């Protein structure tokens, strides 16, 4: 008994050491594409498992993806590897990261086929380094069973009836958190600090990431959470419930547009260009709503569930230069306001 | 020659340096005797192969085994703390050696059974080690050590943890085992009585050196050094000066007492300072005609059953004598004698 157990263990050991090495055969260089993407994009429930095979089949190019973590970390890695770039494509750098990307000169501009189909106000990079592939709005998401009278504006949100009812994310560690901070900066200007001070009594907790914050919301801790206008669509599509709703604010909603770009020094430039074209094709775009839970950037028929995900007609955006210059001081101001208590 | 130690040297800086030359005959039961920390266990471990000597060679059955690892020496060892494998039962412990040598299964089984009978623990095969008493553990350790018929059996203070009664029975067990198997055995102990009763020959250790080697009788009655004489048994020691040396040496001690001693070496001449040594049992009551009459007074008597140990006040100091049954000495003045044959001289 003992011996057989140990034999099995030793076998496992041998397998574990050798299995990994033998399987990964390097595909020949010309028909390969290396992609940096965020964890959520590459996740089993994200777009990658659906759209990558379509691309591979269509062009006969094998995709090798490298997940790095959040989008911020991807950009970091691309910058660190600048001198010795091994990847071709970077997916997920959003409008907030644009100035970082441009300043560090890690991308080459490319105007993909079909760019004309993209709505003009979504082209957040007029130099074509980052091409948008999806977008959404940060928004208040609430449970209509508990909140009968949802706030209609940032100021509404300060009402005492929402005491300890809101979950937000830390802008230092999460992109919806940062988006909400920018939203307040955009609307309130320097008054954002005052706004946050007044908002604090209504905040139940500040989570480090969207996942844990939305998890708290899902488990019923608070009836309101900062998320995306597209969030309710998921619950309609899969949970078959319609009490999770979002509301468009009178002030407008801050927009997040995610982009994709070709890295400077990409070893597989031709394949990378094909991928950029693919991004704007219907094949790719039609998968975005139900996998990445964002809006597509071209006009295509939307799933029914997206009736619950209204598009803001008052998109808010801060200037990329501005963000780059002031981000640290905004974060500082936010920190001071929230810690004041 | 079964075992030969040739110029074995190992030094422990700050402690002692071990020097050993020794030969063991086939089937000999040899004891290393000495106080603790004198190097006897170290020498045993060198023979077993656990310690490597700085220099010197070890031969077993004429073969140089100095550089062989312990597992290739065919030398078994029994430790003071038994060192039975706690993870195996009795049978597995005894079978360990034979299994290592890939004996056939049924042969191992017979051997185990036979050994358990030999150590008077039949039917103990499946017992777990922690259920055994100290004496039982000792027997199993012995059985385990001899299971493979080793060329040499080493016993490192195997009885020191046992009580008196257990000691006696285990000692008998060891002697019996040795008698039956004719195994050449080295036995390490600090207990001289154990050494005397069990051994064919004894090596007395003193700070890393073998002081002398001999049969128990030689060691006891004709010790070659004063250290051995003092270490083994009880002794009477008197100092004096040689006054004349012929076939009998005459030694003058304090207060004019003269001792006549058989001259064995003819190396003494008049004027030499010497030490006289004799065992208590060599000292008997005098009837007045013998040589070497000592006058004294018994100042203390301790009863030991078959004999008294008497302490006698004499001009030369206190002497120890035995008064054997039937008793004839009182707590009073007495007159004793020692035969010149029984006195041994050591030079200073």
């Amino acid at each position, binding site marked *: 008994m003992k011996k057989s157990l140990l034999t099995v263990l030793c076998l496992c*050991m041998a397998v574990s050491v050798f299995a990994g090495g033998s399987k990964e055969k390097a595909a020949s260089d010309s028909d390969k594409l290396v992609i940096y993407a965020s964890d*959520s994009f590459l996740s089993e429930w994200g777009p990658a498992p659906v759209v990558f095979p379509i691309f591979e089949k269509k062009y006969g190019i094998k995709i090798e993806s490298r997940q790095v*973590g959040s989008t*911020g970390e991807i950009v970091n890695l691309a910058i660190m590897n600048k001198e010795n770039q091994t990847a071709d494509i970077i997916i997920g750098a959003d409008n907030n990261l644009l100035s970082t990307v441009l300043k560090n000169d890690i991308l080459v501009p490319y105007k993909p086929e079909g760019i004309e189909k993209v709505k003009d106000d979504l082209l957040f990079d007029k130099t074509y380094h980052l091409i948008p592939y999806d977008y959404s709005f940060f928004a208040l998401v609430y449970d209509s069973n508990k909140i009968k009278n949802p706030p209609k504006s940032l100021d509404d949100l300060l009402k005492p009836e929402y005491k300890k009812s809101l979950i937000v994310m*830390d802008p230092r560690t999460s992109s919806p958190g940062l988006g909400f901070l920018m939203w307040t900066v955009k609307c309130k200007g320097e008054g954002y600090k005052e706004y946050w001070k007044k908002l604090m009594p209504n905040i139940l*907790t500040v989570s480090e990431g969207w996942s844990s914050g939305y998890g708290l919301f899902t488990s019923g801790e608070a009836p309101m959470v900062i998320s995306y206008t597209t969030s309710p669509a998921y619950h309609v599509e899969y949970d078959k419930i319609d009490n999770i709703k979002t509301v468009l604010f009178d002030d407008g909603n801050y927009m997040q547009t995610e982009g994709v770009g070709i890295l400077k020094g990409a070893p597989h430039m031709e394949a990378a260009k094909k991928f950029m074209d693919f991004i704007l094709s219907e094949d790719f775009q039609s998968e975005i709503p139900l996998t990445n839970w964002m809006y597509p950037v071209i006009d295509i028929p939307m799933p029914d569930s997206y009736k619950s995900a209204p598009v803001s007609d008052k998109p808010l955006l801060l200037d990329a230069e501005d963000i780059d210059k002031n981000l640290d001081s905004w974060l500082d101001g936010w920190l001071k306001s929230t810690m004041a208590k | 020659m079964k075992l030969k130690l040739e110029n074995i040297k190992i030094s422990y800086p700050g402690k002692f340096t071990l020097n050993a030359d020794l030969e063991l005959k086939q089937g000999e039961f040899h004891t290393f005797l000495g106080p603790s920390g004198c190097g006897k266990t170290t020498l045993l471990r060198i023979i077993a192969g656990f310690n490597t000597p700085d220099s010197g060679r070890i031969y077993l059955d004429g073969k140089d085994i100095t550089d062989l690892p312990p597992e290739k020496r065919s030398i078994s060892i029994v430790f003071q703390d038994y060192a039975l494998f706690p993870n195996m039962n009795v049978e597995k412990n005894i079978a360990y050696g034979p299994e290592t040598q890939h004996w056939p299964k049924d042969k191992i089984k017979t051997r185990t059974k036979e050994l358990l009978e030999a150590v008077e623990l039949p039917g103990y095969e499946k017992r777990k080690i922690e259920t055994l008493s100290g004496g039982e553990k000792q027997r199993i350790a012995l059985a385990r050590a001899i299971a493979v018929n*080793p060329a040499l059996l080493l016993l490192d203070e195997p009885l020191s943890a046992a009580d008196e009664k257990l000691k006696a029975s285990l000692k008998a067990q060891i002697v019996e085992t040795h008698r039956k198997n004719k195994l050449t055995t080295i036995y390490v102990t600090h207990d001289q009585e154990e050494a005397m009763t069990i051994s064919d020959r004894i090596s007395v250790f003193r700070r890393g050196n073998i002081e002398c080697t001999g049969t128990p009788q030689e060691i006891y009655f004709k010790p070659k050094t004063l250290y051995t004489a003092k270490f083994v048994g009880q002794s009477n020691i008197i100092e004096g000066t040689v006054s004349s040396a012929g076939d009998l040496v005459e030694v003058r001690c304090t207060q004019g007492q003269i001792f006549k001693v058989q001259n064995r070496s003819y190396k003494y001449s008049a004027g030499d300072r010497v030490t006289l040594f004799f065992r208590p049992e060599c000292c008997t009551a005098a009837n007045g005609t013998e040589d070497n009459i000592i006058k004294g007074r018994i100042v203390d008597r301790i009863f030991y059953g078959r004999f008294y140990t008497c302490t006698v006040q004499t001009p030369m100091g206190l002497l120890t004598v035995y008064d054997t049954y039937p008793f004839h000495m009182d707590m009073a003045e007495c007159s004793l004698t020692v035969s010149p044959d029984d006195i041994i001289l050591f030079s200073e």
Partner: protein
Amino acid sequence: MKETRLPLLFLFLIPFLLLILFFYVPVITVFMTGFSKEGLVSVLGDSYCRKICLFSLEQGALSTFLSAAIGFPGAYILAKYTFRGKGFLKALITVPFVLPPIAAVLGIVLLIGNNGIINRALMALTGAAEPPLKVLYSLKAILIAHTFYNIPLFIRFVYPVWEKIPKSLYEAGRSLGAGKVRLFYTVTLPWITSAVVASCALIFVECFMSFSIVLVLGGGPQYSTMEVEIYKLARTTSHIAKACALGGLETLFALVFISIYTAAGHREQRYSGSAGRNEEVPLKSLSMAHSIPALLYVLFLLLYVALPMVTIAFNSFTGNGRWGLSGGFTLNWYTSFAQPVMYRPVLNTVFIAVSTVICAVLLSLVIAAVISRWPKGSFLVQIFFFASLAISSILLGLGYLLTISKLGFRPNGKILLVAVHTAAVLPFTIKAVSLFYSRINRRCIECAQSLGARPLRILWTVKLPMIKNGIFTAGIFAFAVSAGEVNGALMLSPEGFTTMPVAIYRLIGAYRFYQACAMGTVLLLICIAAFYAIDRLGEVSL
């Protein structure tokens, strides 16, 4: 003996090389990249940084104190008494190790949150409109989460040492007229001090570096640790220098405690030389006055550790298309395990964890052998291996990215992942194995040698069986840490290779909250089963 030395030396080098490669190279890369005087000044000159340094220390100290204080009776009961379900309790208190922080947070929230089971029950009973129990989103909540993790850790560390106090010491003490209190101070306390100090140091380091628990349950940035700040700074390249400086500061703090941990472990080994085993008394045999508090404590411990996990399990059966906890019973989330996306992470986790166990145990054996042969250097050896505890996972992650970018190629992800997990568990496994290794009776090995057994046979038949319990303990820790590890798995695993904790994160990220609960439940079940089996195996044959 001489002939075996060369290959042994070679073997000894493997763990050192491994750790240098997978730990020291990345960490040194980080420090080389950005560690500077300006960085340190910028950190220490920042009032916010100073404040979170203080808070990190404060909540760490509080958590440690509470974990030790509450865990102490538990260690006593497990060491002294036998009772039905003890094996299960022992397995259970190991399980929190595998729970990724996000799952632990959710478990606690689902239990005692505003909409948690307890509050809803109380509201139903009293008819109150507001949740009566409001402990979350405060320092209290942080402490609850930290004690949930660390009471078990404390018990797990202390009771095996306590259990080894020889009965004879107490008997000697009593024969000399010592009463219970005096016996405790003169016998028990000196014996377990090292284990208590070591586990406290470890708990402190873990709480000091705690990240998501502090942020979420604390309720916001007024309760924040240095780790959050490092994370924030490390996200953008322009701040890497400051991140490294803060990381360096954090490492410095942690190193102090790691040294205490190691030194205490060192002292413990001296005691273990004379270790015996105390007599375990059935709890039933005690008088009511003694057994009832003990039973109550065991019950409390059971609930405290198990309830957050049970709540996760409970949730995994609900939410059938409806919202909140009002959802009815469903097995939907479990039937989804028929899909590869769900069952692959299970297989992957088991595969990685088992590989980690094997690597960690083998390497620990080698290192234990080094320590036993080179006792003077053992402190250095341990510091060398234990330093990995002092480096935050974020800093290490940064190091990997920097190193990989310098290397220009990516090693096989699975091997890398096993290596990283192995490096992470080595401090624990070395401790467990070397403790038992140092207790091996040398004479047994010499006996085996003299009976003709070669080194390999001795290892197999004598040494391994004698340190079996150490190996099992090490195995449990390795399995637990590997199965629950998130950061390395997120960062290093190759495409399409997902472990269960990562899957939990992703499921929540993909709005699939209840499916995540199901995944968490399966993770917990696998671990409980594994630990229970290992525990039984360990006791049956020794």
